[in-house]
C-alpha cells in the first residue's frame, strides 16, 4: 500500500496557518454567534468567522491475529470560514491526527480556498480543494460526522491512506448553476497541478512540496442534475485528465471518468457511484481499472441502519497504482444519534482483497461536531 511519510514543509505551513487562523478568528467568532447583534442593521467591519471542529474516537478489531483490537483517535478537523465581504469568502480545513499512545500531533492543511461569488452561476475559487471527481469527494471532507458509515469508500480514500485518486489539488475552480435551468443543472470546472506521484522516499519531495511536477495541468469538468421535482435526487458525471511524469520514463496520460446517482434526504440516503481510471504510456497498452460503491441507509428516529458495497479493481501491471491492490468490502452497520451533533456508529465489515479472503472486522466510531 502506498503510504507517503510525513511532509514537514506542508505540515509546518499548516501549523503556522492554523495558529494564525485561530488567533485571528477567535474574537469575531464571539461576535458572529451573538444573536442579539443581528437585530441591528448589517454590520460592516470585522469579517464574520465561523469555526467548527469535527472529531472522532474509534475502536476496531479484526480476525487477523497480527492486528489487536484497539482504540484510536480519528482525525480532528478544524474548519474555519469567513465572509470577507458580500462576494468574497475564505475557507480553511486543518486536520490534526493524534496518536493514541502519546500526544504527538500531525497537522495537515487539507483545504484553503479563497472564493469569489459573482452570482449563483459563477463561483471562482483559488487554493487547495477537494477535486470534483464524482460526488463523494466534493460532498464529504475530513470531518466524518456527515458520513453515515465509518470511513470513505475505498475508491475515494485519501492519498496518504492508500487512495488511488487525486483527492486534493492546488489550483483554480469554477462552479455554479447553469443559467436558464432554475439551478437544476450545475457545473464544475477545475484546473490544478495534479497529484504528485513522487517517490515518498525522495528527499527532494519536500523541497518542491505544492509545486507541479510538470507544466501540464490537470483538468476536471463535471455536470450534475438536481431536478426540483425530486428533492434530494442528483445524477452527474465528471471527467478528469492529467499528464503524469514518472522519473525519466515517458509521461503517463491519466484519465478518470465518473458517474453517479444520489438520493439524500434527512431520512433516506441512497448513493451509487462508479469510476473508471485509465493510465496510458506512449506506445503501450492502456491500463483500465474500475471502482465504486453502492450505499443505502434509512433513519428510524435516532437510529439509522446502513449498508455499503465497496469495490476496487486494480490490475497489478497498472503504472503508479498497480501495487495498491483490489478489494471488495461488504459493510453493514447502525448509526445512533443520541443528541444533535453527536453520532455513534458500529459496523461489521467483510473484506476480500489480494491477501485475504473473507476477513471480518468490527469498527465502532463516536463522532461529534462543536
Amino acid at each position, binding site marked *: 500500500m502506498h503510504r507517503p511519510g510525513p511532509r514537514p514543509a506542508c505540515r509546518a505551513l499548516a501549523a503556522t496557518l492554523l495558529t494564525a487562523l485561530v488567533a485571528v478568528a477567535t474574537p469575531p467568532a464571539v461576535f458572529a454567534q451573538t*444573536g*442579539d447583534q*443581528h*437585530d*441591528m*442593521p*448589517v454590520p460592516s467591519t470585522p469579517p*464574520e468567522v*465561523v469555526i*467548527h471542529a469535527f472529531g472522532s474516537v474509534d475502536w476496531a*478489531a479484526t*480476525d487477523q491475529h497480527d492486528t489487536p*483490537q484497539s482504540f484510536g483517535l480519528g482525525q480532528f478537523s478544524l*474548519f474555519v*470560514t469567513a*465572509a470577507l465581504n*458580500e*462576494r468574497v*469568502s475564505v*475557507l480553511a480545513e486543518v486536520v490534526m491526527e493524534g496518536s493514541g499512545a502519546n500526544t504527538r500531533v500531525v497537522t495537515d492543511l487539507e*483545504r484553503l*480556498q479563497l*472564493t469569489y*461569488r459573482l*452570482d*449563483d452561476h459563477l463561483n471562482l*475559487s483559488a487554493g487547495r*480543494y477537494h477535486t470534483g471527481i464524482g460526488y463523494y469527494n*466534493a*460532498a464529504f*471532507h475530513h*470531518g466524518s460526522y*456527515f458520513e453515515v458509515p465509518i470511513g470513505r469508500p475505498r475508491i475515494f480514500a485519501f492519498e496518504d491512506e492508500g487512495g488511488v485518486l487525486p483527492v486534493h489539488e492546488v489550483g483554480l475552480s469554477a462552479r455554479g448553476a447553469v443559467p436558464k435551468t*432554475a*439551478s437544476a443543472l450545475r457545473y464544475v470546472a477545475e484546473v490544478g497541478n495534479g497529484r504528485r506521484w513522487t517517490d515518498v522516499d525522495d528527499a527532494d519531495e519536500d523541497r518542491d512540496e505544492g509545486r507541479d511536477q510538470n507544466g501540464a495541468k490537470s483538468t476536471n469538468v463535471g455536470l450534475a442534475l438536481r431536478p*426540483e421535482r425530486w*428533492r434530494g435526487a442528483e445524477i452527474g458525471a465528471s471527467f478528469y485528465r492529467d499528464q503524469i511524469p514518472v522519473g525519466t520514463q515517458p509521461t503517463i496520460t491519466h484519465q478518470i471518468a465518473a458517474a453517479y446517482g444520489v438520493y439524500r434526504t*434527512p431520512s433516506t440516503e441512497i448513493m451509487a457511484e462508479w469510476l473508471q481510471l485509465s493510465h496510458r504510456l506512449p506506445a503501450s497498452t492502456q491500463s483500465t481499472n474500475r471502482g465504486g460503491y453502492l450505499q443505502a441507509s434509512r433513519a*428510524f*428516529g*435516532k*437510529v439509522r441502519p446502513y449498508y455499503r458495497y465497496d469495490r476496487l479493481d486494480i490490475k497489478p501491471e497498472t503504472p503508479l497504482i498497480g501495487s495498491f491492490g483490489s478489494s471488495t468490502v461488504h459493510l453493514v452497520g*447502525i448509526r*445512533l444519534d*443520541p443528541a*444533535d451533533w453527536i453520532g*455513534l456508529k*458500529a459496523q*461489521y465489515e467483510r473484506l476480500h482483497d489480494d491477501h485475504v479472503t473473507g476477513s*471480518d*472486522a*468490527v469498527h*465502532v466510531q463516536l463522532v461529534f*461536531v462543536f
Partner: protein
Amino acid sequence: MRTPRLLLLVLLMSAAALTAAAPLVAQQVVAPGPPLAIIVHRSNPVDNLTFGELRRIFMLDTQTWPHGRKITVVLRDHGQPERADAIRMVCGLSESDYEKHILFRTFQGNVNIGPRAIQSVAGMLNFVSSAPGAIGYVNADETDGAVKLLRIDGMLPDDPRYPLRRRGRGRGAAER
C-alpha cells in the same frame, strides 16, 4: 473475534431498545395562526417567487437575487417556535435537520453567509427594512409599510390558496 461480535450485538440491541422505548409525542393540535408573510427590502425589484424558488433561497441553494445582490436569509432566533415553524413550512424540514443542512453546505464551501438570527418581530422588520438583500418573514398581521411583501406563486397571504397558510398545527402570534 468473540468480543467484537458480542460488542456489536450489544450495540445493536441497545439501539433497538432505545428506538422502541422512545416516547411517542402526541401531536399538539393548535388553532391555525395567520399565514406566513415573506418580506424583503422595499428597494428589491422582485415581486413574486415560486414556492420552489423560495425554498431554494431558504436552503441556501440560491444565494443571489436576479439583479445580482447577495441574499441574506433572516430567521427568528434558535429555539424560538417561529423559527422551527417557518423552516417546516418553507423547507419541509425540522429545525435540527435544517441546521445540519446549513452546516453541511457550509462545510462543502457552498455558503458565504449563513442565515441571520433575529430575536423579535420588531428586530426582523428593522433588519429587513435596513438590509437591501435581506429576505425574512413575519405573520401576515405583523407586516408594516417599511418592508415589501412578496407574492408566493402569485398569491398574497390573504389568498385562500396561498402556500404558506398554517393548517392547524402552526403556532401563531397568539402563542407568543
